[in-house]
Protein backbone atom coordinates (compact mmCIF):
# COMPACT_ATOMS: atom_id res chain seq x y z
CA UNK A 1 0.00 0.00 0.00
CA UNK A 2 1.45 3.37 -0.98
CA UNK A 3 2.30 5.88 1.65
CA UNK A 4 -0.36 8.44 2.43
CA UNK A 5 0.53 12.12 2.48
CA UNK A 6 -1.58 15.17 3.23
CA UNK A 7 -1.37 18.11 0.84
CA UNK A 8 -2.99 21.36 1.95
CA UNK A 9 -4.93 23.03 -0.88
CA UNK A 10 -5.76 26.69 -0.34
CA UNK A 11 -6.76 29.05 1.23
CA UNK A 12 -4.41 30.84 -1.17
CA UNK A 13 -4.25 29.04 -4.48
CA UNK A 14 -3.88 30.45 -7.99
CA UNK A 15 -7.14 28.91 -9.11
CA UNK A 16 -9.23 30.02 -6.16
CA UNK A 17 -10.68 33.51 -6.29
CA UNK A 18 -11.64 33.26 -2.63
CA UNK A 19 -10.25 31.46 0.43
CA UNK A 20 -11.36 27.90 1.08
CA UNK A 21 -9.05 25.29 2.50
CA UNK A 22 -8.98 21.59 1.71
CA UNK A 23 -6.73 18.98 3.27
CA UNK A 24 -6.18 16.40 0.56
CA UNK A 25 -5.11 12.93 1.62
CA UNK A 26 -3.14 11.46 -1.29
CA UNK A 27 -1.94 8.02 -2.23
CA UNK A 28 0.71 8.73 -4.86
CA UNK A 29 -1.12 11.27 -7.04
CA UNK A 30 -4.66 10.12 -6.30
CA UNK A 31 -6.90 11.80 -3.78
CA UNK A 32 -8.42 9.37 -1.30
CA UNK A 33 -10.02 11.84 1.08
CA UNK A 34 -10.67 15.55 1.31
CA UNK A 35 -11.45 17.56 4.43
CA UNK A 36 -12.78 21.08 3.87
CA UNK A 37 -12.53 24.03 6.18
CA UNK A 38 -13.87 27.53 5.78
CA UNK A 39 -14.17 30.55 8.00
CA UNK A 40 -11.33 32.72 6.74
CA UNK A 41 -13.58 35.63 5.88
CA UNK A 42 -16.64 35.17 8.10
CA UNK A 43 -18.28 38.58 8.54
CA UNK A 44 -21.32 37.94 10.68
CA UNK A 45 -23.71 39.79 8.36
CA UNK A 46 -26.64 37.74 9.66
CA UNK A 47 -26.28 39.41 13.00
CA UNK A 48 -26.15 42.89 11.50
CA UNK A 49 -29.90 42.64 10.94
CA UNK A 50 -30.47 43.48 14.58
CA UNK A 51 -28.79 46.85 14.05
CA UNK A 52 -30.30 47.85 10.71
CA UNK A 53 -33.85 48.70 9.80
CA UNK A 54 -35.44 46.03 7.65
CA UNK A 55 -35.65 48.34 4.62
CA UNK A 56 -31.95 49.23 4.92
CA UNK A 57 -30.84 45.64 5.22
CA UNK A 58 -31.49 45.17 1.48
CA UNK A 59 -28.22 47.02 0.87
CA UNK A 60 -26.42 44.72 3.29
CA UNK A 61 -28.03 41.60 1.80
CA UNK A 62 -26.93 42.77 -1.61
CA UNK A 63 -23.33 42.98 -0.48
CA UNK A 64 -23.17 39.42 0.83
CA UNK A 65 -21.74 38.49 -2.53
CA UNK A 66 -20.55 40.50 -5.50
CA UNK A 67 -21.82 38.07 -8.09
CA UNK A 68 -25.26 36.97 -6.97
CA UNK A 69 -25.88 40.32 -5.34
CA UNK A 70 -29.17 41.13 -7.05
CA UNK A 71 -30.64 37.76 -6.15
CA UNK A 72 -29.75 38.16 -2.49
CA UNK A 73 -31.62 41.46 -2.46
CA UNK A 74 -34.50 39.84 -4.34
CA UNK A 75 -34.68 36.89 -1.98
CA UNK A 76 -34.61 39.15 1.06
CA UNK A 77 -37.23 41.52 -0.35
CA UNK A 78 -39.52 38.67 -1.32
CA UNK A 79 -39.27 37.28 2.19
CA UNK A 80 -40.26 40.60 3.77
CA UNK A 81 -43.04 41.10 1.21
CA UNK A 82 -44.39 37.67 2.05
CA UNK A 83 -44.36 38.37 5.79
CA UNK A 84 -46.00 41.78 5.38
CA UNK A 85 -48.38 40.59 2.63
CA UNK A 86 -47.24 43.22 0.13
CA UNK A 87 -48.36 42.80 -3.47
CA UNK A 88 -45.60 43.97 -5.78
CA UNK A 89 -46.68 45.50 -9.12
CA UNK A 90 -46.24 43.37 -12.25
CA UNK A 91 -43.74 45.68 -13.88
CA UNK A 92 -41.48 45.37 -10.84
CA UNK A 93 -41.65 41.59 -11.14
CA UNK A 94 -40.60 41.74 -14.77
CA UNK A 95 -37.78 44.19 -14.10
CA UNK A 96 -36.57 41.98 -11.26
CA UNK A 97 -36.60 39.01 -13.62
CA UNK A 98 -34.58 40.86 -16.25
CA UNK A 99 -31.96 41.95 -13.73
CA UNK A 100 -31.85 38.47 -12.16
CA UNK A 101 -31.21 36.90 -15.52
CA UNK A 102 -28.58 39.52 -16.39
CA UNK A 103 -26.88 38.63 -13.10
CA UNK A 104 -27.07 34.96 -13.96
CA UNK A 105 -25.56 35.67 -17.37
CA UNK A 106 -22.62 37.56 -15.98
CA UNK A 107 -22.12 35.05 -13.18
CA UNK A 108 -22.10 32.08 -15.55
CA UNK A 109 -19.81 33.85 -18.02
CA UNK A 110 -17.47 34.70 -15.15
CA UNK A 111 -17.52 31.08 -14.04
CA UNK A 112 -16.97 29.77 -17.56
CA UNK A 113 -13.91 32.00 -17.77
CA UNK A 114 -12.53 30.86 -14.42
CA UNK A 115 -13.24 27.26 -15.34
CA UNK A 116 -11.40 27.61 -18.66
CA UNK A 117 -8.54 29.17 -16.72
CA UNK A 118 -8.48 26.24 -14.26
CA UNK A 119 -8.06 23.77 -17.10
CA UNK A 120 -5.39 25.93 -18.71
CA UNK A 121 -7.35 27.38 -21.64
CA UNK A 122 -6.33 31.03 -21.31
CA UNK A 123 -7.77 32.18 -24.60
CA UNK A 124 -11.22 30.88 -23.75
CA UNK A 125 -11.01 32.56 -20.34
CA UNK A 126 -10.39 35.94 -21.96
CA UNK A 127 -13.16 35.44 -24.48
CA UNK A 128 -15.69 34.58 -21.72
CA UNK A 129 -14.81 37.67 -19.77
CA UNK A 130 -14.97 39.80 -22.87
CA UNK A 131 -18.58 38.70 -23.36
CA UNK A 132 -19.31 39.22 -19.68
CA UNK A 133 -18.21 42.83 -20.04
CA UNK A 134 -21.09 43.59 -22.40
CA UNK A 135 -23.57 42.27 -19.80
CA UNK A 136 -21.94 44.45 -17.15
CA UNK A 137 -22.28 47.47 -19.44
CA UNK A 138 -26.02 46.84 -19.75
CA UNK A 139 -26.30 46.48 -15.97
CA UNK A 140 -24.42 49.72 -15.42
CA UNK A 141 -26.56 51.60 -17.93
CA UNK A 142 -29.82 50.38 -16.40
CA UNK A 143 -29.03 50.28 -12.68
CA UNK A 144 -25.97 52.45 -12.10
CA UNK A 145 -23.76 49.65 -10.79
CA UNK A 146 -21.72 47.04 -12.57
CA UNK A 147 -22.06 44.26 -10.02
CA UNK A 148 -23.90 45.81 -7.07
CA UNK A 149 -27.14 46.85 -8.71
CA UNK A 150 -28.93 48.39 -5.76
CA UNK A 151 -32.25 48.49 -7.57
CA UNK A 152 -34.28 45.99 -5.59
CA UNK A 153 -36.13 47.22 -2.53
CA UNK A 154 -38.86 45.98 -0.28
CA UNK A 155 -42.08 46.64 -2.17
CA UNK A 156 -40.72 46.86 -5.68
CA UNK A 157 -37.77 48.27 -7.58
CA UNK A 158 -36.03 51.63 -7.38
CA UNK A 159 -35.46 52.25 -11.08
CA UNK A 160 -37.28 51.77 -14.33
CA UNK A 161 -35.83 50.83 -17.69
CA UNK A 162 -37.19 53.13 -20.38
CA UNK A 163 -38.86 51.80 -23.51
CA UNK A 164 -35.95 53.00 -25.63
CA UNK A 165 -33.36 51.17 -23.55
CA UNK A 166 -35.51 48.03 -23.51
CA UNK A 167 -35.71 48.10 -27.30
CA UNK A 168 -31.96 48.60 -27.49
CA UNK A 169 -31.39 45.64 -25.17
CA UNK A 170 -33.74 43.53 -27.25
CA UNK A 171 -31.84 44.38 -30.42
CA UNK A 172 -28.51 43.58 -28.78
CA UNK A 173 -29.66 40.12 -27.66
CA UNK A 174 -29.43 38.41 -31.06
CA UNK A 175 -25.78 39.26 -31.80
CA UNK A 176 -24.95 38.56 -28.15
CA UNK A 177 -26.57 35.14 -28.34
CA UNK A 178 -24.62 34.34 -31.52
CA UNK A 179 -21.39 35.19 -29.70
CA UNK A 180 -22.40 33.12 -26.68
CA UNK A 181 -23.19 30.16 -28.92
CA UNK A 182 -19.73 30.41 -30.48
CA UNK A 183 -18.27 30.40 -26.98
CA UNK A 184 -20.51 27.57 -25.77
CA UNK A 185 -19.58 25.55 -28.83
CA UNK A 186 -15.95 25.48 -27.64
CA UNK A 187 -16.95 24.33 -24.14
CA UNK A 188 -19.33 21.66 -25.42
CA UNK A 189 -17.63 20.31 -28.52
CA UNK A 190 -13.91 20.93 -28.32
CA UNK A 191 -12.05 17.61 -28.04
CA UNK A 192 -9.39 18.91 -25.66
CA UNK A 193 -12.00 20.35 -23.29
CA UNK A 194 -13.99 17.11 -23.41
CA UNK A 195 -10.86 15.05 -22.82
CA UNK A 196 -10.08 17.07 -19.74
CA UNK A 197 -13.59 17.12 -18.24
CA UNK A 198 -15.47 13.97 -19.08
CA UNK A 199 -15.58 11.36 -16.35
CA UNK A 200 -14.01 13.72 -13.83
CA UNK A 201 -15.54 14.29 -10.40
CA UNK A 202 -18.55 12.07 -11.00
CA UNK A 203 -21.46 12.17 -8.58
CA UNK A 204 -24.57 10.09 -9.18
CA UNK A 205 -28.13 11.38 -9.16
CA UNK A 206 -29.10 9.65 -5.92
CA UNK A 207 -25.95 10.75 -4.19
CA UNK A 208 -26.32 14.36 -5.31
CA UNK A 209 -29.91 14.41 -4.02
CA UNK A 210 -29.07 12.74 -0.72
CA UNK A 211 -26.19 15.13 -0.08
CA UNK A 212 -28.45 18.12 -0.65
CA UNK A 213 -26.64 19.46 -3.72
CA UNK A 214 -28.04 22.67 -5.15
CA UNK A 215 -28.18 24.36 -8.51
CA UNK A 216 -26.04 23.26 -11.47
CA UNK A 217 -24.24 20.72 -9.27
CA UNK A 218 -27.54 18.89 -8.76
CA UNK A 219 -28.81 19.48 -12.29
CA UNK A 220 -25.56 18.20 -13.80
CA UNK A 221 -26.30 14.89 -12.09
CA UNK A 222 -29.85 14.70 -13.40
CA UNK A 223 -31.80 16.14 -10.45
CA UNK A 224 -34.40 18.38 -12.12
CA UNK A 225 -34.59 20.96 -9.38
CA UNK A 226 -34.66 24.66 -10.14
CA UNK A 227 -36.46 27.10 -7.92
CA UNK A 228 -37.49 29.27 -10.84
CA UNK A 229 -40.09 26.57 -11.51
CA UNK A 230 -42.08 27.70 -8.48
CA UNK A 231 -42.81 30.92 -10.35
CA UNK A 232 -41.52 33.69 -8.12
CA UNK A 233 -41.10 37.14 -9.74
CA UNK A 234 -42.22 36.82 -13.37
CA UNK A 235 -41.00 33.26 -13.93
CA UNK A 236 -44.53 31.97 -13.43
CA UNK A 237 -45.80 34.05 -16.38
CA UNK A 238 -42.80 33.41 -18.59
CA UNK A 239 -42.74 29.68 -18.09
CA UNK A 240 -39.55 27.86 -17.35
CA UNK A 241 -38.05 24.42 -17.69
CA UNK A 242 -34.85 23.50 -15.85
CA UNK A 243 -31.74 22.56 -17.81
CA UNK A 244 -30.68 19.04 -16.85
CA UNK A 245 -27.71 16.89 -17.78
CA UNK A 246 -27.32 13.32 -16.58
CA UNK A 247 -23.62 12.41 -16.64
CA UNK A 248 -22.81 13.99 -13.27
CA UNK A 249 -19.21 14.83 -14.17
CA UNK A 250 -17.44 18.18 -14.60
CA UNK A 251 -18.40 18.25 -18.26
CA UNK A 252 -22.11 17.90 -17.38
CA UNK A 253 -21.94 20.71 -14.83
CA UNK A 254 -20.22 22.89 -17.41
CA UNK A 255 -22.84 21.98 -20.02
CA UNK A 256 -25.67 22.92 -17.62
CA UNK A 257 -24.18 26.37 -17.18
CA UNK A 258 -23.56 26.88 -20.90
CA UNK A 259 -27.16 25.95 -21.66
CA UNK A 260 -28.43 28.14 -18.83
CA UNK A 261 -26.70 31.06 -20.53
CA UNK A 262 -28.85 30.41 -23.60
CA UNK A 263 -31.95 29.95 -21.41
CA UNK A 264 -31.28 33.26 -19.63
CA UNK A 265 -30.97 35.11 -22.94
CA UNK A 266 -34.29 33.61 -23.99
CA UNK A 267 -35.94 34.60 -20.69
CA UNK A 268 -34.69 38.18 -21.00
CA UNK A 269 -35.96 38.36 -24.56
CA UNK A 270 -39.43 37.19 -23.55
CA UNK A 271 -39.52 39.38 -20.44
CA UNK A 272 -38.72 42.45 -22.55
CA UNK A 273 -41.40 41.71 -25.12
CA UNK A 274 -44.06 40.94 -22.49
CA UNK A 275 -43.15 43.81 -20.18
CA UNK A 276 -46.34 45.23 -18.65
CA UNK A 277 -46.88 48.91 -17.95
CA UNK A 278 -47.57 50.14 -14.46
CA UNK A 279 -46.04 51.41 -11.28
CA UNK A 280 -42.69 50.27 -9.93
CA UNK A 281 -43.31 49.96 -6.24
CA UNK A 282 -45.85 50.10 -3.47
CA UNK A 283 -45.48 52.06 -0.29
CA UNK A 284 -44.29 49.99 2.62
CA UNK A 285 -45.75 50.81 6.00
CA UNK A 286 -45.44 49.17 9.38
CA UNK A 287 -43.01 46.53 10.48
CA UNK A 288 -42.76 42.82 9.69
CA UNK A 289 -44.17 40.41 12.22
CA UNK A 290 -43.86 36.75 11.42
CA UNK A 291 -41.45 34.43 9.76
CA UNK A 292 -40.81 33.07 6.31
CA UNK A 293 -38.28 30.95 4.46
CA UNK A 294 -37.72 32.79 1.22
CA UNK A 295 -36.10 30.82 -1.56
CA UNK A 296 -34.67 31.98 -4.87
CA UNK A 297 -32.59 30.25 -7.54
CA UNK A 298 -29.18 31.85 -7.74
CA UNK A 299 -26.56 31.08 -10.40
CA UNK A 300 -25.01 28.64 -7.93
CA UNK A 301 -28.25 27.10 -6.70
CA UNK A 302 -31.02 27.64 -4.26
CA UNK A 303 -30.53 30.29 -1.59
CA UNK A 304 -32.66 30.33 1.56
CA UNK A 305 -33.27 33.48 3.55
CA UNK A 306 -34.99 32.72 6.83
CA UNK A 307 -36.43 35.99 8.10
CA UNK A 308 -38.13 36.51 11.39
CA UNK A 309 -39.73 39.76 12.39
CA UNK A 310 -40.92 40.70 15.84
CA UNK A 311 -43.10 43.66 15.01
CA UNK A 312 -40.33 46.25 15.26
CA UNK A 313 -38.25 47.95 12.57
CA UNK A 314 -35.39 45.58 13.35
CA UNK A 315 -35.78 41.94 12.44
CA UNK A 316 -35.05 39.39 15.14
CA UNK A 317 -33.15 37.00 12.93
CA UNK A 318 -31.99 36.48 9.38
CA UNK A 319 -30.43 33.17 8.55
CA UNK A 320 -29.01 32.84 5.08
CA UNK A 321 -28.19 29.43 3.65
CA UNK A 322 -26.20 29.93 0.50
CA UNK A 323 -25.80 27.33 -2.27
CA UNK A 324 -22.05 26.89 -1.85
CA UNK A 325 -22.47 25.69 1.72
CA UNK A 326 -24.89 23.04 0.46
CA UNK A 327 -22.46 22.09 -2.30
CA UNK A 328 -19.51 21.45 0.01
CA UNK A 329 -20.61 17.88 0.99
CA UNK A 330 -21.00 16.85 -2.70
CA UNK A 331 -17.54 18.35 -3.37
CA UNK A 332 -16.05 16.26 -0.58
CA UNK A 333 -17.60 13.17 -2.18
CA UNK A 334 -16.46 14.15 -5.70
CA UNK A 335 -12.78 14.55 -4.94
CA UNK A 336 -11.75 10.98 -3.96
CA UNK A 337 -10.41 9.24 -7.05
CA UNK A 338 -9.32 12.42 -8.81
CA UNK A 339 -5.69 13.15 -9.62
CA UNK A 340 -4.04 15.99 -7.73
CA UNK A 341 -3.70 17.95 -10.99
CA UNK A 342 -7.47 17.71 -11.52
CA UNK A 343 -8.42 18.98 -8.07
CA UNK A 344 -8.63 22.66 -9.16
CA UNK A 345 -11.03 21.73 -11.96
CA UNK A 346 -13.24 19.65 -9.65
CA UNK A 347 -13.29 22.34 -6.96
CA UNK A 348 -14.27 24.99 -9.48
CA UNK A 349 -16.94 22.78 -11.03
CA UNK A 350 -19.27 23.44 -8.06
CA UNK A 351 -18.67 27.18 -8.56
CA UNK A 352 -17.55 27.92 -5.01
CA UNK A 353 -18.56 31.37 -3.81
CA UNK A 354 -16.94 31.74 -0.44
CA UNK A 355 -18.20 35.25 0.27
CA UNK A 356 -21.71 33.85 0.08
CA UNK A 357 -20.82 30.93 2.30
CA UNK A 358 -19.30 33.15 4.96
CA UNK A 359 -22.07 35.69 5.39
Amino acid at each position, binding site marked *: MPERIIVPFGPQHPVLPEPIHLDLVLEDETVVEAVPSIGYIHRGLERLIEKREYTEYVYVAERICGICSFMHALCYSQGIEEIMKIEVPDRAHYLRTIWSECSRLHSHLLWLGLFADSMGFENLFMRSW*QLRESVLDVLEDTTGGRVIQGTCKVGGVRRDIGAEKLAEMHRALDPFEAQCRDLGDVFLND*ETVKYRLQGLGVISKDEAYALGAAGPTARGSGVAMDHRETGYAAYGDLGFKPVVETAGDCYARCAVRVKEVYASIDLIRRAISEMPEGSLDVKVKGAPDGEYFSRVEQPRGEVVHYLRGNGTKHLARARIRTPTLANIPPLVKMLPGAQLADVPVVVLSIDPCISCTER
Partner: protein
Amino acid sequence: MGIFQMTKTVLRNLAGGPATRQYPAVPARTGPLTRGHVVFDPATCRSCSLCSKRCPCEAIRLDKEAKVWEIDRMRCIACGDCVESCPFGSLAMEPEYFSPVVEHVVERYTITYVKPEKPAKKPADESAGA
Protein backbone atom coordinates in the same frame (compact mmCIF):
# COMPACT_ATOMS: atom_id res chain seq x y z
CA MET B 1 -13.42 17.30 -35.85
CA GLY B 2 -13.75 19.15 -32.65
CA ILE B 3 -10.26 20.54 -32.21
CA PHE B 4 -10.59 23.77 -34.17
CA GLN B 5 -13.67 25.17 -32.41
CA MET B 6 -11.77 28.18 -31.18
CA THR B 7 -10.15 29.06 -34.55
CA LYS B 8 -12.97 31.29 -35.76
CA THR B 9 -12.89 33.37 -32.58
CA VAL B 10 -9.08 33.54 -32.61
CA LEU B 11 -9.00 34.80 -36.19
CA ARG B 12 -11.71 37.36 -35.47
CA ASN B 13 -9.79 38.56 -32.44
CA LEU B 14 -6.62 38.93 -34.50
CA ALA B 15 -8.42 41.16 -36.95
CA GLY B 16 -10.29 43.23 -34.36
CA GLY B 17 -8.70 45.73 -32.00
CA PRO B 18 -8.08 45.19 -28.27
CA ALA B 19 -11.15 44.65 -26.08
CA THR B 20 -9.64 46.48 -23.13
CA ARG B 21 -8.84 50.14 -22.72
CA GLN B 22 -5.70 51.90 -21.50
CA TYR B 23 -7.05 52.92 -18.12
CA PRO B 24 -6.26 55.43 -16.53
CA ALA B 25 -5.06 57.20 -19.72
CA VAL B 26 -8.51 56.49 -21.16
CA PRO B 27 -11.17 57.06 -18.48
CA ALA B 28 -13.41 54.19 -17.34
CA ARG B 29 -16.75 53.73 -19.03
CA THR B 30 -19.60 55.28 -17.07
CA GLY B 31 -23.25 55.81 -17.79
CA PRO B 32 -25.58 58.61 -16.71
CA LEU B 33 -26.91 56.44 -13.87
CA THR B 34 -23.52 55.28 -12.58
CA ARG B 35 -23.23 55.64 -8.85
CA GLY B 36 -19.84 57.27 -8.44
CA HIS B 37 -19.84 59.53 -5.41
CA VAL B 38 -22.23 61.67 -3.39
CA VAL B 39 -21.97 65.45 -3.55
CA PHE B 40 -23.48 67.74 -0.94
CA ASP B 41 -24.81 71.25 -1.31
CA PRO B 42 -24.48 73.04 2.04
CA ALA B 43 -26.58 75.97 0.85
CA THR B 44 -29.86 74.02 0.68
CA CYS B 45 -29.54 71.50 3.56
CA ARG B 46 -32.15 72.05 6.26
CA SER B 47 -30.62 69.58 8.74
CA CYS B 48 -33.53 67.15 8.67
CA SER B 49 -30.99 64.31 9.23
CA LEU B 50 -32.92 61.85 7.05
CA CYS B 51 -29.71 61.06 5.14
CA SER B 52 -27.77 60.08 8.23
CA LYS B 53 -30.71 58.01 9.52
CA ARG B 54 -31.14 56.15 6.26
CA CYS B 55 -27.44 55.52 5.56
CA PRO B 56 -26.92 51.76 5.92
CA CYS B 57 -23.20 52.06 6.68
CA GLU B 58 -23.18 55.07 9.01
CA ALA B 59 -21.02 57.12 6.67
CA ILE B 60 -22.99 60.33 7.13
CA ARG B 61 -23.05 62.27 10.37
CA LEU B 62 -24.98 65.43 10.99
CA ASP B 63 -24.63 67.80 13.90
CA LYS B 64 -27.68 70.05 13.99
CA GLU B 65 -26.39 72.42 16.65
CA ALA B 66 -22.96 72.96 15.11
CA LYS B 67 -24.44 72.93 11.59
CA VAL B 68 -21.91 70.38 10.44
CA TRP B 69 -22.46 67.69 7.83
CA GLU B 70 -19.80 65.01 7.52
CA ILE B 71 -19.24 62.13 5.13
CA ASP B 72 -16.72 59.38 5.57
CA ARG B 73 -15.86 58.39 2.00
CA MET B 74 -14.24 55.18 3.13
CA ARG B 75 -17.45 53.96 4.70
CA CYS B 76 -19.74 55.16 1.93
CA ILE B 77 -20.89 52.37 -0.38
CA ALA B 78 -22.55 54.73 -2.88
CA CYS B 79 -25.93 53.02 -2.61
CA GLY B 80 -27.74 56.29 -3.31
CA ASP B 81 -30.30 55.90 -0.54
CA CYS B 82 -29.47 59.32 0.95
CA VAL B 83 -29.86 60.98 -2.44
CA GLU B 84 -33.34 59.49 -2.84
CA SER B 85 -34.41 60.29 0.68
CA CYS B 86 -33.29 63.94 0.71
CA PRO B 87 -36.49 66.03 0.52
CA PHE B 88 -34.62 69.25 -0.35
CA GLY B 89 -32.38 68.03 -3.16
CA SER B 90 -29.19 68.85 -1.30
CA LEU B 91 -27.57 65.56 -2.25
CA ALA B 92 -26.71 64.35 -5.72
CA MET B 93 -24.96 61.35 -7.18
CA GLU B 94 -22.14 62.07 -9.62
CA PRO B 95 -21.05 59.36 -12.07
CA GLU B 96 -17.29 59.82 -11.55
CA TYR B 97 -15.67 57.52 -9.04
CA PHE B 98 -14.00 59.24 -6.15
CA SER B 99 -10.25 59.43 -6.62
CA PRO B 100 -8.04 57.23 -4.43
CA VAL B 101 -6.74 58.66 -1.18
CA VAL B 102 -3.78 57.78 1.02
CA GLU B 103 -5.18 59.18 4.25
CA HIS B 104 -8.43 58.55 6.08
CA VAL B 105 -10.12 61.94 6.00
CA VAL B 106 -13.70 62.64 6.97
CA GLU B 107 -15.07 65.32 4.66
CA ARG B 108 -16.70 68.11 6.61
CA TYR B 109 -19.08 70.79 5.42
CA THR B 110 -20.61 73.68 7.30
CA ILE B 111 -24.26 74.11 6.47
CA THR B 112 -24.89 77.61 5.19
CA TYR B 113 -28.64 77.36 4.73
CA VAL B 114 -30.41 80.30 6.31
CA LYS B 115 -34.03 79.92 7.22
CA PRO B 116 -35.97 82.56 5.31
CA GLU B 117 -37.70 85.10 7.52
CA LYS B 118 -41.32 84.17 7.95
CA PRO B 119 -43.81 86.93 7.36
CA ALA B 120 -44.75 88.33 10.74
CA LYS B 121 -47.81 86.58 12.07
CA LYS B 122 -50.57 88.05 14.06
CA PRO B 123 -50.38 87.24 17.78
CA ALA B 124 -53.82 85.59 17.57
CA ASP B 125 -52.52 82.98 15.08
CA GLU B 126 -49.59 82.11 17.27
CA SER B 127 -51.70 81.43 20.30
CA ALA B 128 -54.04 79.28 18.18
CA GLY B 129 -51.09 77.27 16.90
CA ALA B 130 -49.67 76.71 20.37
